């Protein structure tokens, strides 16, 4: 009838399963990817070793992993926070761009400030810009009932074009017009050395300041959600907007403030791109990285839990890093993408497994009829 499999909904998920499922999922992904690698003529074991080395053990590999993980941590938190209240802020990408614009402006304008103040100003500058950008879809959603998925998504493109305009199509404050080549190869102004964020260096490994900031933010968000009135209101809103309205929660303001905070977090991702890594507004680099969109995947894999976002961002950061290291003439980009896709697929699939009980189908009616032999 419906095939040999049967699927039943679990009433409650046992604790051991919550741990076992992600581990088994990753193992399963490794097996499937291994088969794929073998089929395309690569030795799975040496490839895995290469990936591990490229993301953890090789010279500078772990640092690179954190470089990828840091922006994903912020954009992951951005999505996870808003999604908790079922406010679908898909605009992390654009809010990150605007954050980068804001932070680089702050860094350029306040270049002669003392270093600690300058850095704090850059963080806030990026957060503020991201916040403002997120407020647009938030206000539209709260007061005109537009769909925030569409508006926040479309504003990503607007922010992208705005960033390109600043560097390529105008003589804006951000653009470097001092060198003679600047009109042929447009670039942004490089920030003063003081505006570079300090990292913690242990041997060859450097932990970016942005990552530490992100972990602190994750802890803060968890406390906010779990044990404050603000977080309680978010939980009620996420579960039942009517009940929220009934209980006196200012639902419209709530939507705007949650979206603004979410956008501010993505804005700090932009700050970190400027302060930690780039030190210059680089539209092309930011756009190609697509950290805003990856953040949505990170949030989903972390089940919107801020602390889990920290771990997942490292996992995806490592994968991205390893992927770039593997790419080459004998290892096409498509294969790297396929591998990453399989891993995400199994992990998300595993979550469904944890919520349902799946097994082989038994016959519905047991063949032994108990009553038949009794008195005939």
């Amino acid at each position: 009838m419906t095939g040999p499999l049967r699927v039943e909904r679990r009433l409650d998920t046992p604790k051991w399963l919550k741990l076992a499922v992600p581990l088994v999922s990753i193992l399963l992904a490794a097996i499937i990817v291994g088969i794929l690698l073998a089929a395309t003529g690569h030795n799975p074991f040496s490839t895995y070793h290469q990936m591990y080395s490229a993301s953890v053990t090789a010279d500078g590999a772990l640092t690179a992993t954190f470089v990828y993980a840091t922006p994903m941590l912020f954009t992951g938190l951005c999505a996870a926070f808003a999604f908790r209240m079922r406010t679908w802020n898909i605009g992390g990408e654009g809010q990150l761009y605007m954050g980068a614009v804001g932070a680089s402006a702050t860094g350029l304008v306040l270049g002669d400030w003392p270093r600690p103040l300058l850095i704090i100003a850059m963080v806030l500058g990026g957060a503020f810009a991201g916040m403002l950008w997120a407020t647009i879809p938030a206000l539209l959603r709260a007061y005109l009932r537009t769909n925030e998925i569409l508006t926040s998504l479309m504003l990503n493109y607007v922010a992208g074009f705005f960033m390109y305009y600043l560097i390529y199509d105008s003589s804006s404050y951000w653009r470097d017009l001092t060198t003679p080549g600047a009109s042929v190869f447009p670039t942004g102004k490089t920030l003063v050395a003081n505006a570079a964020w300090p990292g913690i260096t242990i041997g060859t490994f450097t932990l970016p300041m942005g990552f530490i900031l992100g972990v602190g933010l994750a802890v803060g968000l968890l406390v906010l959600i779990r044990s404050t009135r603000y977080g309680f209101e978010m939980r009620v809103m996420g579960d039942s907007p009517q009940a929220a309205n009934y209980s006196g929660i200012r639902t419209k303001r709530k939507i705007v403030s949650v979206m603004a905070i979410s956008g501010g977090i993505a804005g700090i991702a932009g700050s970190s791109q400027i302060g930690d890594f780039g030190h210059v507004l680089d539209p092309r680099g930011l756009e190609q990285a697509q950290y805003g969109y990856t953040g949505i995947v990170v949030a989903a894999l972390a089940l919107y839990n801020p602390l889990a976002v920290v771990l997942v961002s490292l996992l995806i950061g490592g994968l991205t890093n390893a992927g770039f290291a593997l790419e080459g003439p004998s290892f096409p980009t498509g294969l790297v993408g396929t591998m990453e896709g399989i891993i995400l697929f199994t992990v998300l699939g595993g979550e469904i497994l944890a919520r349902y009980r799946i097994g082989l189908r038994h016959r519905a009616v047991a063949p032994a009829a108990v009553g038949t032999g009794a008195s005939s």
Partner: protein
Amino acid sequence: MTDSVLDAGGGQAAPAAGPTPASSPSANGPGAVPGALAVKAIDMTKRFPGVVANDHVSFEAAEGEVHALLGENGAGKTTLCNLLMGLYRPDEGRLFISGRAVRFHSPRDAQDAGIFMVHQHLRLVESMTVAENVVLGWSKPRRLRFSPRTVEKAVAEAADRFQMPVDPSARIWQLSLGERQRVEILKALYRGAKILILDEPTTVLTPQETEQLFSSVRDMAAAGRTVIFISHKLPEVLAVADRVTILRQGRSITTVPTAGTDADHLAGLMVGREVSLEATAKLAEEPGPVVLELEGVSARGDLGTEALKDVTLSVCSGEILGIAGVAGNGQRELAEVITGLRATTEGKITIGGTRLSVGDPRAAIDLGIAYVPEDRMGTGISPNLSIADNLMLKSYRGKTMRSGPVLSGRKANANAREMIKRFDVRAPGPRTLIRQLSGGNIQKVLLARELSSEPRVLVAASPTRGLDVGATQYVRRVLAETAQRGVAVLMVSEDLDEILELSDRVAVFYNGRVVGILPAAGANRQQIGLMMAGAA
């Protein structure tokens, strides 16, 4: 064969089945045909964390029998059905269908065995036609091509055969709730239902539709099908069932034939003590000063049309004002306007002399207006939050639930434990999710929250709708006590008896207007009925 099945599945094995001999169902009701046992459940047990929802429940129903499962909310009726339907797996117990031992793993298994259920909340796709809904997800016979015309013809034939008049090409959203329910039943019959479970089927029906349903149920039984009828309404059970199995606190108490019993007896069995179905005594006292006052209030409905027109009324401290009227004549809008959930277009509302700001629920709460909304699950509570969280839905802003700047889970739990005890909520603990509670217990949580805020005004909209005998009496008693403590109570109800029993005065609504306000003592039902119909 049938005889042997009957013997093997006889009543001796079921200790709780009471004095009913399984071999004589025919004597019990007008439509019962002597037949084999269609369903036999022995010692069905289902435990949930903290609760035994079904504790060795046994019952049996013959072919051609209408068998009622009667019990209060939380007595285990729904759990038992979910066990029969394969939605849950029993921890203990055995189930026989037509004499064969079965073990279901999914609803599909149960359907293959001929068991179908019509849920209280119908499960139809509103944008699809009747015919499409009937065949949806049903792959017998298996065909690749889906031809709407063939399907409609087949469904029309089935509707004819089962005497379920319904237009197969109509879309679900065009149908009344009664017609939709008929589609659900037709769907089950079309798929070969031998045993049909109806879960509280009359909740959404008008009296006429209920009559029609009962006659269909009798027809189905006469055709040899078994109908399991779940209800907590005694008159219905007496009207339609051959036998009744009474469930109380997860146990099957006894099974009795409906012939030779009466409502009082059944109510006693159901609640576990002597109950009188008579009115809650209300102490006549002089009402205090006016607390809630509406002057010339108008408001728009959801569709933008004027739903409240120039309403002027007042409620005194210690008084219950009953709002009577046929549903949809502005009662819901009235409740929402007073509680700030709906903006007024004209007029003013004052609470103890203070004017209520327009459309601001928080201002209404702060002025001491408590609200038990009609839409309990959708508005009154947050279903996926715990009892403790729901109890502080209106008090979390204050200092009582905090330690320093953060909310205190310990204080919330302590508060919840106290409320659970004081309002007799049946729940495993303060962290239980609200949606896991029965309707009566949800209403108790709601009342607990609203009354613990020491309100000046209580607006209660259809506070007993869908509740069983015990819970209804409880809620009515709480409302009467609340008024006696000096709260101004405004109660909306479609049940005129309830209004006359509880209220001091009655305001009759028709078409958004107050047609008249009269004292409840000595009120003429005939006259109120005419006013409700807009004829007086």
